């Protein structure tokens, strides 16, 4: 019938009228800016946090099952009174060498089993003494626990066979004990025995929180470890450990503090964990052990991440909706304010859809403009958070797209009502309005 108005012209018209009210336009956009910004930033920080948690768990190995000795709650009380299970004066609990043997023999699909004794004592070098964890273990410990060799070497099979008095220390312990000398030429002293330092290692993961059974390692850096052969530990320390607490002596008999069972395949982990539990329950009257399955923790962490994403996402979505309502509010006011203009345009040949487009363009420009600014801020903000608080933030490729898409949608959805109200005004009524 006749030429219609080019869409571009109507867009220009919308932008022009927004520019006439710069302050109002910017204030209206703020809601969307914050909404989009918070969607991206929140998702990035959530993603970063769960990434860190997952890395920490993966560090423990997804094919591993870790069993740790735990002092039973009843039995030996904290005051040192002789409990019912005491033999002589020592409390006996925990994983035994027999347990290790049974697990290794009964379970199919085991790649290897790593036993460790963990003794807490002071490690000395000359005048310097430092409280440490002394870990008696096998050479495969390095591989299973992902230790990085900084210098020298880790424990070898020969050290184990000959019960050599050798030890590997963590890098931070090396710094404390030997600030000025080369640790590899030195010896460390635990109790009455000297151990030649043969290597320095660094744990690749972040701190492992529950390294020791029974708790009580307050004030002791978690990464101050001395690794010695298990056979050496057994012969030097025996199985009875004496712990001083609150002025009284308390003896404990623990054969193994930790058992790491590595499966051939992560798929076997869940059923193997059940079977190990069955074996342990059979031979332990009291629950003097705990089992940690990193794979299950990982699954829990993923579930937790999914949940936190939903929570964060809904908060952000609500703020976007609030922003949208802000836009709608302003546009309704604008439509009322510009009723007369609408009437004039209608009288001079504008169709309803021309009016709808004009007002819709204004809301979409507001929301898309706000969305773009929000995306930029939302990408910058996680970096600021990382710099200030050291939290890891990961911006996934889809979160800016999602946030921007939602903001554009918000503009259309919340713009449609004011725009259609504008168009539905009767031109006669609109012209009469002042």
């Amino acid at each position: 019938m006749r030429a219609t108005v080019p869409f571009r012209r109507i867009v220009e018209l919308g932008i022009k009228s927004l520019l006439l009210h710069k302050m109002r336009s910017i204030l209206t956009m703020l809601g969307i800016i914050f909404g989009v910004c918070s969607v991206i930033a929140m998702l990035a920080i959530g993603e970063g946090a769960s990434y860190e948690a997952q890395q920490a768990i993966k560090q423990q190995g997804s094919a591993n099952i870790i069993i740790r000795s735990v002092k039973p709650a009843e039995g030996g009380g904290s005051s040192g009174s002789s409990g019912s299970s005491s033999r002589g004066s020592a409390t006996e609990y925990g994983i035994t060498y027999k347990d290790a043997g049974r697990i290794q023999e009964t379970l199919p699909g085991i790649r290897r089993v790593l036993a460790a004794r963990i003794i807490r004592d002071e490690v000395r070098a000359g005048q310097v003494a430092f409280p440490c964890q002394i870990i008696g273990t096998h050479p495969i410990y390095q591989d299973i626990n992902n230790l990085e060799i900084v210098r020298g070497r880790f424990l070898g099979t020969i050290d184990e066979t000959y019960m050599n008095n050798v030890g590997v220390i963590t890098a931070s312990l090396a710094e404390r004990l030997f600030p000025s000398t080369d640790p590899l030429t030195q010896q460390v002293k635990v109790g009455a025995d000297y151990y030649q330092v043969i290597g320095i290692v660094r744990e690749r993961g972040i701190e492992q929180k529950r390294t020791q059974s029974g708790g009580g390692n307050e004030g002791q850096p978690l990464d101050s470890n001395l690794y010695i052969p298990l056979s050496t530990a057994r012969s030097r320390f025996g199985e009875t450990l004496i712990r001083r607490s609150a002025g009284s002596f308390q003896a404990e008999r623990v054969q193994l503090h930790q058992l790491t069972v590595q499966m051939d395949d992560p798929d076997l982990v869940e059923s193997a964990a059940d079977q190990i539990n069955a074996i342990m329950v059979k031979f332990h009257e009291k629950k003097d052990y705990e089992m940690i399955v990193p794979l299950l923790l990982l699954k829990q962490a993923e579930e937790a991440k999914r949940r936190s994403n939903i929570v964060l996402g809904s908060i952000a979505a609500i703020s976007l909706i609030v922003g949208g309502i802000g836009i709608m509010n302003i546009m309704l006011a604008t439509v009322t304010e510009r009723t007369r203009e609408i009437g004039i345009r209608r009288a001079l040949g504008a169709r309803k859809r021309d009016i709808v487009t004009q007002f819709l363009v204004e809301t979409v420009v507001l929301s898309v403009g706000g969305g773009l600014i929000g995306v930029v801020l939302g990408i910058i903000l996680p970096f600021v958070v990382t710099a200030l608080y050291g939290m890891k933030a990961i911006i996934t490729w889809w979160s800016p797209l999602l946030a921007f898409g939602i903001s554009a949608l918000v503009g259309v959805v919340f713009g449609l009502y004011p725009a259609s109200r504008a168009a539905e005004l009767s031109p006669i009524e609109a012209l009469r309005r002042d």
Partner: protein
Amino acid sequence: MSRGAIISIRGLTKVFKMGDSEVHALAGVDLDIEEGSYVAIMGPSGSGKSTMLNILGCLDRPTDGTYHIGGKDVTHLDDDELSSVRGERIGFIFQSYNLIDQLTVIENIHVPLFYQGKDLVECWNHCEDLAKLVGLGQRLDHRPKQLSGGQQQRVAIARSLVNDPLMILGDEPTGNLDSKTGAEVLDLMDRLHGAGKTIVMVTHGDEVANRAQRVIHMKDGAIDREVVNRR
């Protein structure tokens, strides 16, 4: 329909529903307006002249009867088609000027062409000529708020001409102006009439009616009487 009639109305009625009662604003009006004529429609308020103006301007639809404008039946057109008729065939002049505040003089003149999809750039000369015609060639970049009432109404007149309409429809165009500027505006209308434009004015001022060729008096929704001025 008589020959040469640019507007032809037959049996036009308009009924408004007010709750349970019906108000017959127009009760069967027949009217022909020849091309190039100058018609004034007069009458007291409630006589139906505003309803008449709205229907003539395609801003409203009659309840019954027919309305042809330039030979085209516009009685049953839908909203979009009525918009087109307004934009292409009718030039409006309102009592309160009805310019768009945020637009400049030349942009205001251009508005009807905007909705025909024409860029201001491509019809700049045409719009500027009209501004000059109404004596505002030096004020193309002014906004309505910067102009006097008479100047604003002259912009509105320029705007009513921009789409080369079949009819210029005036709604009390001098109502907001003092008598001197009102006379200037009416002089301008005379010149347009002299140039062959068809003009229909709704008014209750005699000074407007005196310049028209035909004065149609309305009463109770019908044409009461018609006076033909001879000059």
